[in-house]
């Protein structure tokens, strides 16, 4: 009995991997695993975000809580978040959430003295830990040769006019998207089923060239194409198919049902993972696997529950044996 297993062995093929975008194919598993991983990347992979703001002075046009909210939404480099402690169960500070193990402090102090409007951005936040800083999307992209931009302006928080001042202390803590969306490392995480498209070639050849083109054009996305040489209808991009069934309806209307058959492969998924920059997209996926594993571990039955059931089983067998 101990050696039975119904385990699957998923396979992965990576299409594109950048710091903030990851595209890959996941095969030989089912939608429940794909969806669990997607849900965890969005809601349960931890990051750091500003959670407490103490404002010393604020003469800007935005009120204190508005600023605190804006600060919370700034993505912060969170490579260390997996190892960090949640303030709630940090024993070094008794849940106070202000010690070095569970928080990072930022200071911001800006005053506009010139006649020009002054932009206060995420670059003005000074961190107590040089490795934990706000994500600078422009800067990171430039490093990767993403887009050509030398003006790393940071994320705009508020604009100040002459004489206005903003001075505050902000504390960033570890958290998850389930608690508040500001902790989600995901910009978008999606997966789609891989479509399988079969053209009935014999039936297709009964169509005139104009009819073929008309049928191809019935698809709202560019899935099919007319081969200029062979004049045959070919599938150019199966993934462009959005399961809209327009081509099936068109075939029906043309009196050619069964012209094309389209299935979705039940065990094949195309993932797109986009990160806010807090964690690399590929690390987000790996962290999601780790978290799902620890979640599974947490729902294992405790030893005493199993033991109590064993005793119950014996009692049950005894009672059944004792009857009639």
């Amino acid at each position, binding site marked *: *009995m101990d050696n*039975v*297993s*119904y*385990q*699957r*062995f*998923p*396979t*992965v*093929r*990576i299409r594109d*991997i950048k710091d903030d975008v990851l595209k*890959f194919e996941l095969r030989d*598993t*089912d939608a*429940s*695993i794909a*969806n*669990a991983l997607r*849900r*965890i990347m969005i809601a*349960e992979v931890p990051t750091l975000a500003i959670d407490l703001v103490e404002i010393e002075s604020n003469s800007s046009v935005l009120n204190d809580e508005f600023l605190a909210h804006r600060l919370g939404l700034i993505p912060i480099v969170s490579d260390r978040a997996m190892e960090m402690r949640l303030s*709630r169960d940090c024993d070094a500070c008794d849940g106070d959430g202000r010690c070095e193990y569970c928080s990072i402090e930022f200071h911001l102090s800006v005053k506009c003295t010139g006649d020009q409007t002054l932009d206060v951005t995420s670059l003005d936040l000074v961190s107590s830990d040089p490795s934990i800083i706000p994500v600078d999307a422009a800067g990171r992209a430039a490093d990767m040769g993403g887009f050509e931009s030398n003006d790393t302006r940071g994320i705009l928080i508020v604009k100040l006019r002459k004489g206005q001042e903003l001075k505050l202390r902000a504390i960033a803590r570890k958290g*998850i998207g*389930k*608690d*508040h969306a500001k902790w989600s490392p995901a910009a978008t995480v999606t997966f789609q089923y891989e479509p399988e498209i079969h053209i009935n070639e014999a039936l297709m050849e009964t169509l005139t060239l104009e009819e073929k083109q008309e049928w191809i054009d019935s698809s709202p996305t560019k899935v099919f194409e007319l081969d200029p040489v062979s004049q045959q209808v070919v599938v150019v991009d199966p993934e462009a198919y959005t399961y809209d069934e327009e081509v099936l309806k068109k075939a029906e209307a043309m009196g050619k049902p069964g012209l094309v058959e389209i299935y979705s492969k039940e065990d094949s998924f195309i993932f797109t993972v986009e990160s806010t920059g807090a964690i690399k997209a*590929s690390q987000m*996926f*790996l962290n999601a*696997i*780790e978290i*799902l*594993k620890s*979640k*599974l*571990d*947490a*729902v*294992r*039955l*405790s030893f005493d*529950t*199993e033991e109590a*059931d064993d005793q*119950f089983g014996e009692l049950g067998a005894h009672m059944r044996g004792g009857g009639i």
Partner: protein
Amino acid sequence: MNAPDRYERFVVPEGMKKVAYERDMKVMNAATFTLQREDHTIGNILRMQLHRDPSVLFAGYKLPHPLQYRVVVKIQTNSQSSPMQAYNLAITDLTKELDHLKATFEQETNQKQAEYY
């Protein structure tokens, strides 16, 4: 003012069991597992993995209420197994699948990164 704390959605209250197991008193080899502070993420993968086990006659899950943060998994097996055995096996198999997925993914990313340089 009387809003519940946000963390109540994912922190098991003190004194509450993460997993409660209850045998069905009317049906042989049937039981209910109540998982506190879990949702579709765990419920659905457990259900689907249990369906792969031929000794499982029934496996289903539900979220009784969106504001009650628990998921209920019901399992019935034939005499070759027991709900507890099937439940444990499903968790073990899923964990092994994830280990395999992690190794495969890491291998593929390393290969892809090697292509770049």
